């Protein structure tokens, strides 16, 4: 199942970009300009939409001429590459995008040939499926944990180091009760924001040093 590795999906889309000599700037440049200003942190549209671990958008101008004796050839269109590593298959994933960030999808893909808009879900899905490439080989280092599970584990790890550091040499009774409290606080903590550089953590770990 090349698009999938364990529970993770590696989806690849190649959308031909409109070639209109009268557009100024050209459509590929307009996509680039838009992407240049799009936030890549917790304010990214992909942080708001579900299930994206990592993704990229790349305007592929052309193929590369590697030099004689290879032949020189060129693409007739430029293509917008969308490479995503996510928790759901194409249909569910694209549906998630269309429902949560239609505005941003339109802003990007409206420059592509035949894009129907995100408003009509079935047309949007058909369009993206027409642009989908079959991933030949997909590797994922951690392939059995969803995004929320990973974010939660990362926050847990940070909290656990602090807890261990602050509770060294503590008597068992106190250790146990503080650990109980720690678990409760950890549970009550919301899952960290996807895309943020440092996971915000309001949890205190108690112990002597805080």
């Amino acid at each position: 199942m090349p698009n999938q590795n364990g529970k993770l999906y590696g989806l690849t889309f190649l959308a031909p970009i409109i070639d209109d000599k009268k557009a100024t700037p050209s459509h590929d440049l307009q996509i680039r300009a838009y992407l240049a200003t799009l936030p890549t942190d917790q304010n990214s549209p992909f942080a708001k939409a579900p299930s994206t671990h990592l993704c990229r958008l790349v305007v592929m101008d052309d193929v590369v001429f590697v030099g004689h004796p290879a032949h020189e050839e060129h693409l007739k269109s430029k293509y917008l590459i969308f490479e995503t590593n996510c928790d759901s298959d194409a249909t569910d994933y694209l549906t998630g995008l269309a429902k949560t960030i239609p505005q941003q999808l339109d802003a990007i893909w409206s420059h592509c040939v035949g894009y129907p808009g995100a408003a009509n879900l079935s047309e949007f899905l058909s369009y993206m499926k027409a642009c989908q490439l079959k991933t030949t080989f997909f590797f994922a280092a951690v392939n059995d944990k969803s995004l929320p599970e990973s974010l939660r584990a990362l926050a847990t790890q940070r909290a656990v180091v602090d807890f261990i550091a602050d509770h060294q040499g503590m008597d068992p009774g106190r250790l146990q009760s503080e650990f109980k409290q720690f678990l409760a606080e950890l549970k009550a903590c919301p899952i960290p924001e996807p895309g943020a550089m440092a996971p915000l953590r309001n949890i205190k770990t108690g112990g002597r040093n805080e």
Partner: protein
Amino acid sequence: MSNINGKVYAMNCVTPMKPWKTPILRLIFFLLWHIKSKQQDLINLSFIEFARWVIVPKTQFPYLGNRQHKEQLQYDYLLFFSNFNGTWNQYIDAFSAVLSTGLNLIWRWSEKFPGAVPITPFKTYIAQVQFDTDYYYTAYPYATANDLKAAHIVQASLDQLSQRVDTDNPDQFAEHYLQFVLQVQAHLGVTGAAPLC
């Protein structure tokens, strides 16, 4: 407009292949997929978060009509997308040092590939066939593949210990707590920003 987001680097490469070589590459990927031991080296080079290869045969560039010109190409193309931790140089150095056979097996079918060893012509080739990322998003910019694996180990151990906290007496708990610490002690590195390049 950067190839880098936090601790992860987005590399994009496109290389041309003579169409008669493509089925050979497909076979190699098929074998790589099904012979799990061959993937072990890739897993042990623990700085890749996600990577993929996509073969685009010359007739299969998406064609959506509507005044789009159909592609007329001689070559099939191999697209490569990697999400890795560390610097560009470190990444390529590592592959060239320990995975050159595997790299050669995948890229020898691409035109003018010089081989993964020695390092300088290899880096020159990659620089030539690499193109830049316009937008790169990661849900966990402060975490590498190693950090993620460590986090899952800690989470699993914590979940195990949680089951004890209500039933153990303090001394029993202290013992289980020590076991827990020993289980996670190699996985406690703090996460945060990447070193500056």
